[in-house]
């Protein structure tokens, strides 16, 4: 199989990955403003789409981190290896999405690539320092940083607007909704500066590996435009799921909290993009939601839910690496291997989309990690409700006991 065929395949698959990334992540920017009523769903989705498009053009630091620093000498890499890594990432991502497991598109992509390079080239293939500095450490710390920023910002917002009466009209806290229009747009913009870059990085990497581009230091204009359009289209078409399901999961998020969480998310992602940190935007948004929930008076952590969210944070990269490595071993056998890998990937994509279309949209298959994260902290109201229910249940059982006597 010619190098050009494989390069073209990678470009198409990478853009498909970019599209699903946008599709999946519309919720990160627009879930809270829709939940608090700051924006109408349709307007929110349109804004998110345009802001992603603009964000993709702002900076290519994250893209060149992938095409230059992550892999030792990308010109020695074969396009087949990038292909294997990408198909591994797509397979892992779609399967977890289908099963409703928390997962990160970005970590799936990095995991897949790292696994494939390790299997095909060996330990010398990847630059472990760059991976630790630009991917692993940000993966651990960015959600934490965003959480602390959101926690602090929420406390400050509530402290500054505190008055004798606590209702929204007296304190003016309802007005935070107007700010959310801007803050959520900013989150969408920052999403473009980080997530669209990952696709550009992979495409540039395969262009270098295929000998079409000399080195990965710059990103071709057509690559930027294609990646920007793919993520914007994905964001736009991802909107309908949010319109159908929102308003249930995040109903406990108040406007000041939503604003604080969004500003913290955008600040963390933008600062990271500037320094070439490729992070999971979903995890950062989740960290912010948890932080802002704790920043409100009387918020309490539900540890079992928190464990579920954190498990997804830690598990995705190594798991996708394993799938990427297996896929690299299959591809390594030659043209037949490449065809097998391509057929399996396309079959899984079609199967999962067919099943997803047949089933109604529910919380389960939407698998919005943000909703999971929003349930990590129980608000005062939710705690009271739970206490009431346990009291009711206790009363019932004690009544039953009396009846028997």
């Amino acid at each position: 199989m010619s190098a050009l065929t494989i390069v073209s395949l990678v470009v198409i698959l990478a853009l498909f990955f970019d599209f699903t990334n946008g599709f999946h992540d519309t919720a990160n920017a627009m879930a809270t403003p829709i939940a608090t009523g700051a924006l109408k769903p349709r307007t929110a989705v349109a804004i998110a789409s345009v802001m992603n498009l603009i964000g993709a053009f702002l900076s290519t630091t994250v893209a060149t981190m992938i095409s230059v620093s992550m892999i030792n000498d990308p010109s020695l890499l074969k396009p087949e290896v990038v292909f294997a890594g990408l198909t591994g990432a797509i397979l892992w991502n779609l399967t977890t999405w289908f099963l409703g497991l928390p997962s990160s598109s970005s970590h799936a992509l990095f995991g897949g690539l790292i696994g494939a390079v390790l299997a095909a080239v060996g330990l010398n293939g990847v630059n472990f320092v760059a991976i630790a500095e630009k991917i692993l450490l940000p993966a651990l710390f960015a959600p934490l940083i965003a959480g602390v920023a959101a926690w602090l910002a929420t406390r400050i917002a509530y402290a500054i607007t505190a008055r004798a009466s606590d209702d929204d009209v007296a304190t003016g806290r309802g007005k935070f909704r107007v700010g959310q229009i801007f803050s959520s747009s900013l989150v969408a913009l920052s999403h473009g500066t980080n997530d669209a870059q990952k696709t550009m990085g992979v495409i540039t990497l395969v262009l270098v590996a295929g000998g079409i581009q000399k080195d990965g230091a710059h990103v071709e204009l057509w690559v930027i435009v294609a990646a920007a359009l793919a993520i914007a289209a994905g964001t736009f078409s991802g909107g309908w799921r949010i319109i159908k399901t929102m308003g249930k999961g995040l109903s406990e998020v108040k406007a000041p909290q939503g604003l604080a969480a969004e500003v913290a998310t955008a600040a963390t992602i933008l600062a990271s993009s500037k320094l070439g940190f490729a992070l999971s935007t979903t995890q950062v948004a989740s960290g912010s939601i948890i932080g802002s929930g704790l920043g409100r008076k009387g918020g309490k952590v539900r540890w079992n839910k928190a464990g579920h969210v954190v498990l997804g944070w830690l598990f995705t990269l190594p798991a996708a690496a394993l799938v990427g490595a297996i896929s690299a071993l299959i591809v390594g056998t030659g043209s037949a291997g490449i065809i097998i890998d391509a057929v399996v990937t396309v079959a899984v994509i079609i199967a999962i989309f067919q099943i997803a279309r047949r089933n109604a949209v529910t919380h389960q298959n939407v698998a919005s990690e943000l909703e999971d994260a929003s349930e990590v902290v129980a608000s005062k109201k939710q705690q009271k409700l739970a206490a009431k229910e346990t009291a009711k249940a206790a009363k019932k059982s004690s009544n039953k006991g009396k009846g028997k006597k």
Partner: protein
Amino acid sequence: MITIDWNHLFLVAATSVLAAVSVIILFSVGIRLLTNAEHAKKSHKGSDMKALRSEALNRAVAYVMFGLSFGAVILGVLLVIPGVIKGV
């Protein structure tokens, strides 16, 4: 031996927290003052000059605060684009 440069991580942590907190402080003060203005409007019936002036002042400063918080956001975005602000 792997040597990791921790400075960048600290830089991201510091700027993220600082930026988020500054924007929120400016915006929240704006909301506080705007609500002050509304309360002042409710309390003055007729032409109480003092209440009227207090309403106007609160409202004006509130809009300045909103402007400043919006400006801080724009500055943050410009800092991310390479080459727009020199030396960054």
